[in-house]
């Protein structure tokens, strides 16, 4: 039995995104969850499932449940994962809904990734991962360094240029101008991009996402229950997660290819769609390069051709496949992946305002594609008929 259209997203909520929330991750989560429940038209007492992911930097779901007065959680997920897990928690909530384990599951991510645990790695303790001992002694221990390494390999092999990476940053900033939640809305030019300081070559400052304090929550239930609630439901048409390419000698020596390339065919098969059917895509953009490589690995263009594809305007609003219509993590803020789901749902409801992709029916939303951790996850979402 397929998971296709067996669960729906019925509520979305977000806090303000900032450099310093001034409050705890518990408070941020409470705000985002209450906003999502309000959006859905649900009382907190109806919630019987909570799902999150974190890297030792946020509130536990059980603590959060107690704080909301929930006395008997039927389902919880507290996944240790970075951004690669951001979409798997929603997929796993869909599984639990489909299995009848719980009726209303809230998926959330809450973090003070600038004012407390800096997601970019600056000043942060080393991550307890198997590869760290083989990398950190060389001064190589942060996500920008790891993605820069992959980006450089792509540039050397396929001739991808700095201007092509810059085009992603410029397009997304233009999208953010239409988004009141975005932290960075001032338009930038390619010259601004090229003049921004180096972080880790080939990445400049404007290749990197915004270390952000904030939280996002989405409510998942069955399609039947969804149709009795306030909003037009958004069906989870496909949900996949996977893992492959890692540090380990596992016969996958190509740094320009991510785990998304292995997973995408399964996702499309479950959903019964192809990349051509997708109206809008929110692609995990911890760095510009992760957008570029996913355009290839999800099959929007051929391997090695994403740079030219982006420069053609295909990924801008008005293009054939608008990408990161909210500005993405580069310009809206970095809520570790879940703000992509929020934007995908907004687009499918048709209430994304000036940045609305007209007639959007199917959206792809993706997690970190899997170079650093080897794991990834994604959702194909569909407007309910």
């Amino acid at each position: 039995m397929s998971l296709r259209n067996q669960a729906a997203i019925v509520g979305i909520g977000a806090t303000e995104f900032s450099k310093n929330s001034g409050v705890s991750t518990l408070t941020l989560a409470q705000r985002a969850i209450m906003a999502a429940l309000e959006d859905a038209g649900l009382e907190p007492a109806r919630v019987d499932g909570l799902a999150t992911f974190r890297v030792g930097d946020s509130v536990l779901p059980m603590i959060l449940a107690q704080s909301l007065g929930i006395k008997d959680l039927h389902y919880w997920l507290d996944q240790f994962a970075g951004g690669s897990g951001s979409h798997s928690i929603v997929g796993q909530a869909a599984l639990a809904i489909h299995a009848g384990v719980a009726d209303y599951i809230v998926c959330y991510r809450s973090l003070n990734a600038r004012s407390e645990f800096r997601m970019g790695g600056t000043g942060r303790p080393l991550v307890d991962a198997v590869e760290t001992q083989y990398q950190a002694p060389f001064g190589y221990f942060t996500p920008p360094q790891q993605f820069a390494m992959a980006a450089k390999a792509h540039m050397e092999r396929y001739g991808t240029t700095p201007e092509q990476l810059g085009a992603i940053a410029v397009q997304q900033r233009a999208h953010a101008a239409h988004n009141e939640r975005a932290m960075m809305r001032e338009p930038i030019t390619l010259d601004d991009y090229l003049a921004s300081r180096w972080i880790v070559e080939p990445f400049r400052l404007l290749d990197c996402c915004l270390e952000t304090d904030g939280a996002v929550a989405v409510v998942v239930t069955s399609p039947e229950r969804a149709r009795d609630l306030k909003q037009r439901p958004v069906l989870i048409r496909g949900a996949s997660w996977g893992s492959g390419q890692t540090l380990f000698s596992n016969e996958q020596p190509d740094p320009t290819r991510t785990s998304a390339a292995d997973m995408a065919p399964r996702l499309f098969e479950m959903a019964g769609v192809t990349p051509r059917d997708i109206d809008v895509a929110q692609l995990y953009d911890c760095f510009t390069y992760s957008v570029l490589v996913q355009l290839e690995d999800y099959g929007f263009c051929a391997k090695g051709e994403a740079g030219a594809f982006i420069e053609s305007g295909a990924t801008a609003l008005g293009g054939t496949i608008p990408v990161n219509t909210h500005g993405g993590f580069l310009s809206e803020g970095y809520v570790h992946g879940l703000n992509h789901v929020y934007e995908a749902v907004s687009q499918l409801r048709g209430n994304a305002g000036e940045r609305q992709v007209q007639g959007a029916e199917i959206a792809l939303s993706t997690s970190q594609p899997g170079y650093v951790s080897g794991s990834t996850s994604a959702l194909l979402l569909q407007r309910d008929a």
Partner: protein
Amino acid sequence: MSDDRPLPYPDRDSEPYWNALSKGEFKLQRCDDCDAFRWPPRAICNRCHSFRASWSSLSGRGRILSWTCTHQAFAPAYRDAVPYIVVQVQLAEQDDILMIGGWRADREPMANEAVRVHLAKRNDDFTLPDWEPESELYSRS
């Protein structure tokens, strides 16, 4: 250069690897049954699932797959070190063994450039495998 830079922290799988390096030996486990090298060190072979392996010397040769130049000091210990180059090397022995290491030359690496290992002693306990161009000798300063 500051000595606050991170050191390796051997675990029960990696201890022989780091111990060999501290004695000037660059070795990896090699499967006793299918001859595949394992990286990073671990008990099982992911090709044939044998638990048997022997520590085997490497040629110390490889090629440059990619590199980065870090300008932002992500930790205080690197404030005086930036900018610095880190390379990703594919070992000559096996295509799917990719190692991160320091770069030992006064110029940028080149894609696919042949390199050899340069064992750099950090202290009495730890020696790190850096890389230098095959075509020229690194001049120690």
